[in-house]
C-alpha cells in the first residue's frame, strides 16, 4: 500500500538547459597559469603549492593542459615543484620560507616541510606525468612519521623539539594518508626500509569525530562540517577503511546510514546570504526562513511577530522552485560552490551520489555561481576565485554532471588519467606489487 492522496506539486525534473562555458574556464585557468595572480592572493602566499595544484588540476580536468603548454613549459613546472622539495624530506608549502644556503640546525625550524605542500606536490607531479624520480621518497616517509601525534592525528609541520604544529583536524590526516598512498600504496610494514605510520590510530581519530547528527567534525564535539566530513571519509578511503558495500559500519565509520542522512541534508535551496539573514532575530517559520520546506511553511508555522512580518512581507507566496539546489557545509547555512565538491565527493566515496539531486545541483553551479569570465564564485553573484573555480569543476566531474570534463578520482582529487599514470610508474609497481 502506498500513501493516500499525495499531490505531486514539485516536479524536480524541469526542462532546463544550463550551459557549461568550457572555453571561458580554459581561458580563466590559462591566465592563472601564465600570468601573475592578482595581489589579493598575497594573503595565500604560504599556500602557493595549493594554488598551483588548483591551476594544473583544473586544466587537466578540462583536458586543456597539454594542448596549451609545450613539453618545455611542463618541464619547467615540474622543476618548480621540485624546487619546493625540502632537504629533509617532504615539500614546502611555498618557496617563501626557503632559507637556502643560510639554513642550519638552529634556524631550520622556521623553514619546515609541510603536509599540504607535499600532498599537492605529488598531485601535480602525477598530473604533469613526472616519474617521481627526483622525489626523496625514503626521507619523505621518514618525515611523515614525525608529523603524526601520539593520539593518531596529523599536524601540518614539525616544529621545535619535534613538536607537531598545526590543527588536529582531518585535513592533515587526509593529506598525510594521501602522501602515504602515493609512495606506499596500500602496503603494510616497512617500505624502502621505513616503518608505516599508525594508520589505525588515525582511523580511530575519524571515528571519534563523528557528531550526534551524523556528520564528522574536526575533533570530538566540534560541529559537523562538510569539508571535514570529506577529508575524514577520503582518509578512510586511502587507508582502505570505508565500509564495504552492504555494511553499515567499519573501523572508521560507526553508522553509514546516519552519515548519508547528514550528507543529503546538506542539499538546500537557500542560496543567498539575504535569505539567511531573515532568520536572524526571527524565530518563526516562513518561506523566507525555510526555503527547503517552501511548500508548506508559508502560511502555517508563521506567527504574527514583527520580525516574522518583516521577513514574510515582499516574499513570493508561491512555491520556491527546485531548479537550483546547492549544498551547504553545515546545518542551516546557505549553499556554497565548494560544498558541491565536499559533499558530492563524500557521497561518491560512499557510492551514493544517486541519493542527491544532481541535476538541480548542476543548474545551481552553472546558472548561479559559474562566472561570465570563467571560473566559479563562492555564492551566486560572487567573482571567481581559484579555490571555488577548481572545486566547482571537481564537483561537476565527481557527480558525473558534465561530459566535457574528465572523470575525477573522488579520493585523490585528481583526474583518473593522472591516477593511471601513477599506477604505471615502474618504481611504484615494483615497490608495491
Amino acid at each position, binding site marked *: 500500500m502506498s*500513501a493516500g492522496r499525495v499531490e505531486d506539486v*514539485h516536479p524536480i525534473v524541469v526542462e532546463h538547459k544550463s550551459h557549461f562555458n568550457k572555453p571561458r574556464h580554459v581561458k580563466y585557468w590559462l591566465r592563472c597559469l601564465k600570468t601573475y595572480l592578482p595581489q589579493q592572493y598575497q594573503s595565500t*602566499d604560504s599556500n602557493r603549492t595549493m594554488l598551483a595544484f588548483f591551476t594544473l588540476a583544473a586544466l587537466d580536468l578540462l583536458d586543456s593542459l597539454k594542448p596549451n603548454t609545450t613539453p618545455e613549459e611542463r618541464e619547467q613546472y615540474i622543476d618548480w615543484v621540485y624546487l619546493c622539495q625540502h632537504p629533509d624530506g617532504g615539500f614546502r608549502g611555498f*618557496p617563501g620560507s626557503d632559507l637556502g644556503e643560510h639554513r642550519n640546525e638552529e634556524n631550520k625550524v622556521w623553514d619546515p616541510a609541510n603536509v599540504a605542500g607535499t600532498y599537492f606536490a605529488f598531485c601535480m607531479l602525477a598530473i604533469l606525468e613526472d616519474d617521481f624520480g627526483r622525489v626523496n621518497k625514503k626521507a619523505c616517509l621518514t618525515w611523515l612519521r614525525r608529523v603524526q601525534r601520539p593520539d593518531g592525528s596529523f599536524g601540518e609541520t614539525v616544529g621545535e623539539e619535534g613538536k607537531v604544529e598545526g590543527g588536529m583536524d582531518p585535513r592533515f590526516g587526509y593529506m598525510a594518508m594521501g602522501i602515504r598512498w602515493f609512495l606506499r600504496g596500500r602496503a603494510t610494514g616497512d617500505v624502502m626500509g621505513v616503518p608505516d605510520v599508525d594508520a589505525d590510530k588515525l582511523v580511530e581519530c575519524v571515528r571519534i569525530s563523528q557528531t550526534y547528527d551524523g556528520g564528522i567534525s574536526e575533533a570530538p564535539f566540534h560541529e559537523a562540517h562538510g569539508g571535514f566530513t570529506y577529508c575524514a571519509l577520503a582518509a578512510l578511503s586511502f587507508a582502505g577503511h570505508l565500509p564495504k558495500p552492504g555494511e553499515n559500519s567499519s573501523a572508521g565509520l560507526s553508522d553509514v546510514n546516519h552519515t548519508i542522512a547528514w550528507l543529503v541534508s546538506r542539499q538546500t535551496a537557500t542560496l543567498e546570504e539575504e535569505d539567511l539573514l531573515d532568520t536572524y532575530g526571527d524565530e518563526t517559520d516562513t518561506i523566507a526562513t525555510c526555503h527547503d520546506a517552501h511548500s508548506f511553511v508559508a502560511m502555517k508555522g508563521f506567527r504574527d511577530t514583527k520580525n516574522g512580518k518583516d521577513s514574510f512581507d515582499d516574499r513570493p507566496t508561491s512555491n520556491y522552485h527546485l531548479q537550483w539546489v546547492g549544498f551547504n557545509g*553545515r*546545518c*542551516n547555512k546557505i549553499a556554497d560552490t565548494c560544498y558541491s565538491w565536499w559533499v558530492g565527493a563524500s557521497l561518491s566515496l560512499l557510492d551514493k551520489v544517486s541519493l542527491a539531486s544532481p541535476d538541480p545541483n548542476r543548474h545551481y553551479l552553472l546558472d548561479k555561481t559559474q562566472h561570465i569570465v570563467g571560473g566559479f564564485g563562492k555564492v551566486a553573484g560572487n567573482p571567481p576565485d581559484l579555490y571555488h573555480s577548481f572545486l566547482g569543476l571537481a564537483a561537476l566531474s565527481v557527480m558525473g554532471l558534465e561530459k566535457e570534463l574528465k572523470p575525477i578520482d573522488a579520493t585523490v582529487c585528481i583526474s583518473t588519467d593522472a591516477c593511471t599514470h601513477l599506477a604505471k610508474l615502474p618504481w611504484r609497481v615494483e615497490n608495491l606489487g
Partner: protein
Amino acid sequence: MLEKMAKYSNAEEWADIVPIPQDDGPGQPLAAIAYSDDYVEAMSYLRAVMANNEMSERALHLTEDIIRMNPAHYTVWLYRSRILFATSSSLPAEITWLNTIALKYQKNYQIWHHRHTIVDALNSCTGEQDFLSQMFELDMKNYHVWSYRQWLVKRFDLWEGKGELEAVESILERDVRNNSAWNHRWYLVFGRGESCFEDKERVRREVDYAKEAIHLAPQNQSPWNYIRGLIRQTKGPAALSLASFKQFASEFASLDDPDNVTSSHALDLLAEILAEREGDAADAAKALDLLAKKYDPIRENYWKYRKSLLVGQGGVKAAA
C-alpha cells in the same frame, strides 16, 4: 629595486641585516603572485632575521608587518610566539593586539592557534568570553571561534555556572537556527564524560529545551537533530526510546491529516519510528512518500532509498 618603498632597506635600524630574496627557481614558476613591493621587502628581511634566529623587538614588529599582509604564513606565527617568550614581552598586550587582528581577519586559523598558546601561558581566561561575544557580533557561526571556545571551556573549567550555557541560550534566543550554538550546547552538557548520558535530570532538561525550540520553529532542523542525538546516545536510566517520541512527532506530522504537516523533520522522525515495527512499515512508507512528493522533494531520491530499506515493503534492498 626597492628604493621607492624601502621601509627596511633605508632604515638605520635595519642596516646590519642582509635581506634574503625569494628563490623561485630559474624557470617558469607556478602560481606566481603579483606581490606588493612592501611584501617582497618585508619577506626578505623576515627570512634574514629567521636565519639569524633573532629574538628582538624589531623582529617582533616585522612579524606583525608580515601577518597583516599574509596572516596564513604558518611559521611567522611560531616565530612570533618564540620571540614573545624569549624577550619576556607582555602577554596581555599581545592579546590586545590579537583582538584587532582577529576582528580583521575572521577566516584565519593561525590567529586562534596563537591565541590558544598565549592564553594558555597566561593561565587566565579573563576577558575571553567578552571578546568571543564581540567576534560573534560579526559572525555567529565562525567555526574557529566556536572551536576555540570549546578549548577555553575545557582548559578553564567553564562547564557550569560560568556563563557558558547562558551565553548559548542568549545566542539561540536571537537565532534559534544557529547550529553552532546547538552544537556548543551539546558539548557543554555532554562533553565531560560518558556518565552525562546516564543523567536522567540532565537528559530530561535537554529534551524539554529542544521541544520548546521546535514549537517556536518546527521546520528548524537543529533541535530535531539534537533530539535524535539524545535518542541515540543516552543510556542506562536516562535512555530514551525512539517510540516515546511518536506523540511529539505527530503534533507536527500526522498521517491522518497529511495535508497539514508543519515539519518535514517530524515526518522523517515519524517514518523512522514506524519503520522500527514491521507491522507499521506500510505507514512508514506513507510518511516517506509524503516527504518525497510533497514535503521535502529536494531529497526525493533519498526518501525513495529509505523506503527501499523498509522491511516487508516488497522492495526490501532489491530496489536500492
